[in-house]
């Protein structure tokens, strides 16, 4: 059997990991495009021509009081606001088909009759309706953002916004607020989350109880009469959730749908009649806009990008019949993002900065030609600025800055070429024509013809720019994705090959009992591979991803049961003191702890409301949780110290390390007792004690890891003397090596104990107090596994044991309350012990809390390597450095890397295949973020393990010359 050298193995592994990292980055940036967004809000500058110079921030806007700002806008915009008041009625989930019909056909009779008033408005031209195509994901929050900002956000924008849900980018509401408009909101509380503090009055209803289809809407409508009689608002938002709930319950053709539509029709009627009344009374013009955020499928679901889901409605109902050109087609198709710029221009505010929508020109028909062109011009300027941000090459410098109005006939050039050139050309065409039109203000001989050509030119620019921008936000570059997946597959295959190669090398300690190799595959080995296969298959199912904790729990306990069975194989009832007896009892402990861990949090998505131990304890009262927390902490300290003293060779160092366990444990205990009921993050005193703990932990760990091998080296003569081999005058190299191995084993054992004990203490402090017991149970599980594997000898293959531990870590990950939705990330814990806001530190703490259990697995690998060292001893005694290191580190590092690589690769492919799935945004994408974070966790864990072992090894084996000389000197 050819064997691979250590250097080669390392190089291949590093290459594979690098390729994996590059592939992953390429894929992530291809799949979740992060587009450059413009920060800040549009001001009066947006009414000026975009220039090429680096635009200086206009300070004057911000300092202006709302009234002055309003007048300023009015002055510079040259487009008078057409309306004073806006009623935005959002009917959640209403497909435009219900009101406008599909493909020129009127809607079905039931729906026509359900909305008599609205249909009459549409028929006489008072209302104009559009199919507004929404972008995926068709769920409420991103759609609301699109409507008020005109921008399509990426997935990562949402995902990385842990701290606040507030919408910080430029939007209509912020613009209205700036010019002192008063806003009122009744309905879905998503608005309150997005725009906290902007509303004068509000009544939020929650969308949580999907079965409630009556009360949600009554809670909105009950304010209607009161609000309509008041005149202190300019912008009224009504968000009705009932129709969406009806859809979720019974689908499109639910029997309740017609009555719900009739209810909505009544609301429209009430508002419109009131609008007409107001117009007569005080000449204030109110615009009623009825929109839906998304449509629904036949079954009433939404989230994907099918026509049924994206077909939302935009219905503009003005006060007067002549407001809209009756003759024009009533059922045009627009994009949902077009609502934002239209409303902005109708109400005299700047168009939001990141808008990619185009003005609905039918809505400004009542303006003069000059004003209409001006509106188009403003929209073009805004889009041009956005294009400039996304296409750095779009300078148009030569043309833009030097263009001046000439009296000569404007020239229109054919536009083609790359994006930069194309947009530049289209924009310049329109601008030139417009400038020429303005110059000839007194001699408009060619009348409508000239005007129409300008409008066409503007529309050409606007539509192509808008289309390009929205594609940029949605489209995924196929080449990048394929490249990324290919890189991932290559690295995955490389890692699998490496594991296979080192598995094939029959280690010499196995050659004695060749019986193991008679039967090539044992049941547990087959099962481990089968388990990975099951994991891979289950990743294609959205509900298996939601309920992933069951899979890990099931696989882990099955593996432990198989180990149980294996221990039974050699159990002899006649011999009482058997090694397998110890194995069986610790396996029993693992299974028992695992069962409690499984029942601690009812994880996942569908059954979270079922009772579990955590909920039961929370109901029982806080004092029990606190007692459990303190008891767990004490147990961790006791267990840590006792495991430490289980070490076979006793040295004085043990006492010191044990003392450090005790001290840091007491610090945590002290914190628990003192700050039981005060939330730790707001208490200065508590903060200080936590920071002291961090410092003690960090310093002790680093000091021990760095110094311990040196101290152990000094103490080697003692070990030697005890073993009575070192004192002889001529020490054979083999025995010298053997001594070093023993020292290596001891120091790794101490470091391993230190790692996992300190990690558990840290987790006790950081995790929610309800998670104290699971942390203890995990600690117990890992210790019991070490005990099992230390006594199992070469009964299991090493990769089987490492995989079993990996599974234990993943099962623990879910047992700590994590799931594959972003909602379970413990954000509150990320601020423990941090006195000033720091994104990096909070992110680090969040990572430590979320990946507590997988990291515990990696830290326990150090202990595992130490425990297994004696078994490799025969190899190590004869081997060179490379072989020793390969034996020590090969499987513990390669197996986790490989498993993770397989899961990552498969999941990437699944994500690619599922990109049009209904749950791509709600289930698959969040899970992908977890998979990426798990990959980072594997990298960090492997680096820690390798660094620790390598450092210890180098100190012990490279310094052996000096140290052995000195010991020899003493000896002779």
């Amino acid at each position, binding site marked *: 059997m050819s064997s691979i050298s250590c250097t080669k193995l390392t190089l291949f592994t590093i290459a594979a990991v690098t390729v994996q990292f590059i592939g992953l980055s390429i894929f992530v940036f291809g799949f979740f495009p992060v587009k450059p967004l413009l920060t800040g809000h549009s001001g009066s500058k947006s009414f000026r021509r975009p220039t090429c110079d680096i635009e200086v921030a206009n300070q004057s806007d911000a300092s202006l009081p709302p009234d002055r700002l309003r007048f300023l806008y009015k002055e510079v915009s040259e487009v008078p606001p057409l309306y004073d008041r806006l009623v935005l009625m959002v009917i959640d989930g209403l497909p435009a088909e219900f009101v406008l019909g599909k493909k020129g056909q009127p809607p079905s009779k039931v729906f026509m009759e359900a909305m008599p008033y609205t249909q009459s408005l549409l028929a006489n031209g008072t209302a104009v309706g559009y199919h507004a195509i929404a972008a995926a994901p068709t769920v409420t929050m991103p759609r609301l953002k699109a409507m008020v900002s005109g921008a399509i956000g990426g997935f990562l924008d949402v995902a990385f916004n842990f701290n606040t849900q507030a919408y910080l980018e430029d939007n209509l509401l912020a613009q209205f607020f700036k010019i002192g408009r008063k806003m009122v909101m009744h309905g879905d509380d998503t608005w309150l989350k997005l725009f906290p503090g902007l509303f004068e009055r509000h009544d939020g209803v929650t969308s949580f109880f999907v079965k409630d289809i009556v009360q949600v809407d009554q809670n909105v409508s009950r304010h209607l009469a009161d609000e309509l009689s008041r005149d202190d608002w300019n912008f009224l938002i009504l968000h009705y959730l009932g129709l969406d709930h009806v859809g979720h319950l019974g689908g499109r053709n639910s029997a309740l749908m017609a009555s719900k539509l009739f209810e909505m029709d009544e609301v429209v009627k009430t508002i419109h009649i009131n609008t007409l009344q107001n117009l007569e009374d005080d000449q204030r013009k109110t615009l009623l806009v009825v929109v839906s955020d998304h449509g629904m499928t036949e079954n009433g679901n939404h989230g994907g990008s099918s026509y049924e889901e994206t077909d939302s409605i935009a219905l503009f109902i003005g006060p007067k019949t002549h407001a809209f050109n009756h003759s024009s087609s009533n059922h045009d198709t627009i994009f949902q993002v077009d609502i934002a710029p239209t409303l902005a221009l109708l109400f005299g505010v700047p168009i939001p900065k990141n808008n990619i929508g185009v003005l609905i020109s039918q809505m400004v028909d009542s303006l003069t030609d000059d004003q209409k062109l001006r509106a188009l011009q403003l929209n073009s300027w805004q889009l041009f600025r956005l294009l400039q941000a996304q296409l750095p090459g779009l300078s148009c410098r030569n043309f833009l800055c030097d263009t001046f109005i000439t009296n000569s006939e404007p020239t229109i050039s054919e536009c083609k070429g790359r994006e930069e050139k194309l947009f530049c050309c289209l924009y310049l065409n329109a601008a030139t024509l417009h400038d020429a039109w303005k110059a000839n203000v007194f001699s408009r001989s060619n009348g409508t013809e000239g005007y129409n050509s300008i409008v066409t030119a503007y529309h050409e620019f606007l539509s192509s720019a808008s289309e390009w921008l929205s594609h940029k936000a949605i489209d995924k570059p196929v080449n990048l994705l394929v490249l990324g997946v290919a890189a991932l597959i290559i690295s995955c295959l490389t890692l699998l090959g490496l594991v296979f190669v080192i598995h094939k090398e029959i280690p010499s300690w196995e050659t004695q009992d060749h019986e193991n190799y008679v039967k090539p595959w044992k*049941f547990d080995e087959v099962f481990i591979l089968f388990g990975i296969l*099951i994991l891979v298959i289950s990743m294609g*199912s959205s*509900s*298996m991803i*939601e*309920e992933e904790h*069951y*899979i890990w*729990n*099931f696989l882990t*306990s*099955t593996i432990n*049961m198989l180990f149980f*069975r*294996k221990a*039974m*194989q050699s*159990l002899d*009832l006649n011999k009482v003191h058997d090694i397998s007896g110890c194995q069986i009892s610790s396996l029993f402990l693992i*299974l*028992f702890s*695992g*069962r409690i861990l*499984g*029942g601690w949090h009812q994880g*996942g998505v*569908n059954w979270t409301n079922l*009772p579990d131990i955590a909920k039961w304890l929370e109901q029982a009262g806080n004092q029990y949780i606190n007692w459990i927390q303190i008891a767990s902490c004490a147990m961790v300290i006791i267990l840590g110290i006792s495991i430490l003293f289980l070490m076979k060779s006793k040295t004085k160092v043990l006492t010191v390390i044990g003392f450090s366990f005790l001290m840091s444990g007491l610090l945590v205990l002290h914190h628990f007792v003192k700050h039981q009921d005060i939330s730790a993050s707001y208490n200065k005193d508590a903060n200080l004690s936590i920071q002291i703990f961090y410092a003690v932990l960090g310093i002790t760990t680093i000091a021990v890891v760095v110094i311990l091998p040196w101290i152990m080296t000094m103490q080697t003569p003692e070990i030697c003397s005890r073993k009575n081999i070192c004192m002889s005058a001529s020490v054979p190299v083999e025995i010298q090596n053997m001594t070093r191995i023993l020292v290596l084993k001891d120091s790794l054992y101490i470091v391993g104990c230190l790692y996992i004990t300190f990690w558990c203490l840290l987790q006790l402090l950081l995790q929610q107090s309800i998670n104290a017991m699971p942390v203890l149970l995990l600690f117990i599980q890992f210790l019991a596994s070490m005990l099992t594997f230390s006594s199992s000898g070469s009964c299991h293959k090493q990769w089987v044991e490492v995989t079993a531990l990996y599974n234990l870590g993943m099962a623990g990950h879910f047992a700590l309350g994590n799931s594959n939705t972003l909602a379970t990330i413990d954000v509150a814990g990320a601020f423990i012990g941090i006195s000033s806001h720091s994104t990096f530190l909070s992110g680090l703490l969040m990572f430590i809390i979320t990946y507590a259990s997988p990291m515990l697995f990696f830290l326990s690998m150090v202990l595992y390597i130490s425990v297994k060292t004696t078994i490799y001893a025969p190899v190590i005694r004869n081997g060179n450095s490379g072989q020793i290191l390969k034996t020590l580190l090969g499987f513990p590092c390669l197996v986790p890397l490989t498993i993770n690589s397989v899961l990552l690769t498969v999941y990437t492919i699944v994500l690619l295949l599922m990109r049009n799935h209904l749950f791509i945004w709600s289930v698959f994408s969040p899970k992908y973020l977890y998979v990426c974070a798990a990959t980072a966790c594997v990298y960090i864990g492997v680096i820690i393990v390798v660094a620790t072992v390598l450092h210890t090894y180098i100190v012990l084996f490279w310094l052996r010359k000096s140290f052995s000389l000195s010991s020899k000197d003493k000896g002779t």
Partner: protein
Amino acid sequence: MDSRKAAMVETSPSISVSEAFIVNALCVLALAFAVWASNTVFSIDLVSHPSLTLFFISIAELPIVILLYSRYRQNRQQCTYLRAVARGVLGIPVGTLLNFLGAVALGAPVKFQYLPKTINWALMMSVFTTVPASCVLGSSWADWRRIFAQTKPKGSIEYLICLPAHGALIGAWFGAWPMPLDWERPWQEWPISVSYGTIVGYLVALVASLGFILACFRSQHIKSE
């Protein structure tokens, strides 16, 4: 020691193919009868009344299994038929307890309302797994270990014990997989899908054991020739 054990194994009764077929057929018939009777006579099924149905299946299957397997007990000289039956009866609580613990360790709910379901399922499992073994093997730890921990059956009767027991266990294990899916079907509840898996696995393994016994006889034939 080893030679003596080997000698004992050889003295343990073997079963002819036709006999094995009859035993298997009777087991299948009893199972089919139980399912049919619970459906028609008591008008209950696994989905509507899981614990009652499971109990009924166990009760119907139990006497057949005990009476049939006790005929093939080891050490006929020292062990009477009645004693084998008594051993089989003793195997019920032991097997129920073991299967119950196994199910709970693998994630079966432990709430009070699920207790009868779990117990009845464990009872059925014990009929498929431990009861035949305790009828035939008695309290011989070495044999139990060989069959259940090492899966190395020797002789035709041991195939008849080992394979159906493993089949039932593996079937139950696979039967648990649909449970977390969000299909919202009534049969996804614990322990319905698991029981289906158990029964299917048991039936498949019964057929497979016949095949093994056939192969076993063939090889013996060749050897003797």
